[in-house]
């Protein structure tokens, strides 16, 4: 399956298993602008897979309300770039529902899915990676898969998780990434980073599409520099797996974090800050962040903007030589 098919499969499993589960958002009825919901309305009915009016604050607010009654709400925000009208509902409401009510009420059965990340031509409003805005919000979980297999397992975990979750789907991988994905349901744990390749000289951390970039960088590092890289896919942004990352850095002594989102205030800063607190004496070099520039996401300049393998490789080389 490719990534969008993996998403469809996860949604299909959810609606089959949980009679309360509903999917809604803009254009989901005909199958969705990225085809993630194809066939589901015919299979499960128009009361379970339906379009809403064009209103993100409404979509998320509505989803919270469904979840408050205990039913499973799977909301789609058409592009992560458009999640901001729903920011109040997510941050002030969904994230705080359980805490502020003393656990009398919660909206844990809400999952928000949204296409995320650069796509080659998306420009300012079809390329954003807003995870850092949400990382600052206790009470929600933010999850980003790197592949179809990961996407299905992580999405199913988000849907089953008893806390409101945001699931960002790297849109550039929707069709491009293809792998074997089980048809039956399975889950991948949240808040667990995955060491996808062990190494000894430097730890590389990324999530989503960027995991593939740092994998290439690891190959380059081995061939050109004889450097052994440990690669970590963070998978869950909050609550994040501090232990796995720190354990790795204690071993390697070097950390490079890379994300498309702009450098300042990006999630790499949180990782960097925590790791230097926990692993200060183990560090052989300053922690390096290879990120997007502090600009809106440009259209024609995308090839220069993104933290590609050359920029990551160069940062890695400098760290090794520090």
């Amino acid at each position, binding site marked *: 399956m490719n990534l969008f098919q993996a998403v469809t499969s996860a949604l299909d499993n959810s609606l089959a298993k949980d009679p309360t589960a509903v999917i809604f958002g803009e254009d989901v009825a005909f199958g969705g602008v990225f085809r993630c919901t194809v066939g589901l309305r015919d299979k499960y009915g128009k009361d379970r897979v339906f379009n809403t009016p064009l209103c993100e604050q409404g979509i998320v*607010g509505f989803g919270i309300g469904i979840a408050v009654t205990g039913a499973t709400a799977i909301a789609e925000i058409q592009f992560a770039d458009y999640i901001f009208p729903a920011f109040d509902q997510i941050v002030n409401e969904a994230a705080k529902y359980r805490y502020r009510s003393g656990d009398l009420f919660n909206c844990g059965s809400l999952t928000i899915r949204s296409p995320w990340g650069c796509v080659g031509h998306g420009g300012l409003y079809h390329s954003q990676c807003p995870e850092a805005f949400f990382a600052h919000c206790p009470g929600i979980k933010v999850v980003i898969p790197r592949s179809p297999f990961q996407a299905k397992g992580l999405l199913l975990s988000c849907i089953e998780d008893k806390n409101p979750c945001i699931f960002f789907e790297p849109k550039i991988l929707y069709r491009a990434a293809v792998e074997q994905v089980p048809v039956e349901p399975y889950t991948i744990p949240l808040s667990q980073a995955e060491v996808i390749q062990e190494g000894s000289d430097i730890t590389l951390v990324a999530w989503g599409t960027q995991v593939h970039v740092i994998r290439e960088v690891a190959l380059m590092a081995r061939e050109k520099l004889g450097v052994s890289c440990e690669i970590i896919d963070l998978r869950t942004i909050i609550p994040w797996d501090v232990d796995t990352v720190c354990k790795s850095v204690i071993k390697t002594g070097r950390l490079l974090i890379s994300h498309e989102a702009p450098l300042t205030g990006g999630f790499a800063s949180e990782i960097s800050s925590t790791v230097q607190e926990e692993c200060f004496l183990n560090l052989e070099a300053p922690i390096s962040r290879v990120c997007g520039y502090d600009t809106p996401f440009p259209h024609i300049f995308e090839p220069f903007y993104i933290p590609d393998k050359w920029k990551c490789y160069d940062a890695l080389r400098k760290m090794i030589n520090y």
Partner: protein
Amino acid sequence: MDRQGQIINPSEDPHLPQEKVLKFYRSMTLLNTMDRILYESQRQGRISFYMTNYGEEGTHVGSAAALDSTDLVFGQYREAGVLMYRDYPLELFMAQCYGNMSDPGKGRQMPVHYGCKERHFVTISSPLATQIPQAVGAAYAAKRANANRIVICYFGEGAASEGDAHAGFNFAATLECPIIFFCRNNGYAISTPTYEQYRGDGIAARGPGYGIMSIRVDGNDVFAVYNATKEARRRAVAENQPFLIEAMTYRIGHHSTSDDSSAYRSVDEVNYWDKQDHPISRLRHYLVSHGWWDEDQEKTWRKQSRKMVMEAFAQAERKLKPNPNLLFSDVYQEMPAQLRKQQESLAQHLQTYGEHYPLDHFDK
């Protein structure tokens, strides 16, 4: 009813039994008594904040009485009478205001942010109008569950200006949700009068723009509120569509204890509504003219209700606050590892620096 409690149009008299109407009256007056005492308690520094419901008791009780007890309520913050009508105990109103260890909300929020799962009253949050699309989602789920249940969503005329209100109305209509939107138009959003809030014909006139059947009622006539809500409920269940009720009333009190409304409105204006058009007075006239209430009962009830409130108040004040560990729970269903570390670091900090913290007031 008119202002003297006389039924204007006999065909619209709901002919409610004496016991029920007395329950209306007792709920409204008990709320009023509790409001007076808790407002004072804030002035005296005993609780941090309070919001009264003066003048709007009819909107709360009339609507609450027309619902089923399992209908889900989403409120804004000035609907305590709905909880009062549903027999929420004084002890728990006070516990929340004091943030003491009996508070089911675990002391997490400012006063008057009540919530009650058993009475189907969703916990109040401060951001305005956020409850509106949520109520719509809950109604959609209720429809799917075939539960013969509706949702009622309260908000003020000010909150109706928020984008969330527009979102909620549109979703309710397009997704055919069994919901009653109940707008308390009380004349002010803090200091902002309705003339500065909207220029159209109030909130009721917006409903048809969304395809929502709407009605405007005299919010200080508890029977009118009851009738409108009863009919809206009947039709919402039968037809799976939203209804909008705009209840015209007046906010006799200040916005909150942080507000002094004499800065933006005249005392004469307030007194007019208090004396000439108060929902409690109007209902009392009705009760008296039916021989269901008299001066002696009024005196007795005033004493009794005041005593009940004072007792609950004294008890609430004496109780300890919840254990500071409760600062950390319920962020997620399970406590994340990093948060547990933070909890431990506070515990350690208190071991050394505990004398600088009000630990004596908190449960060990």
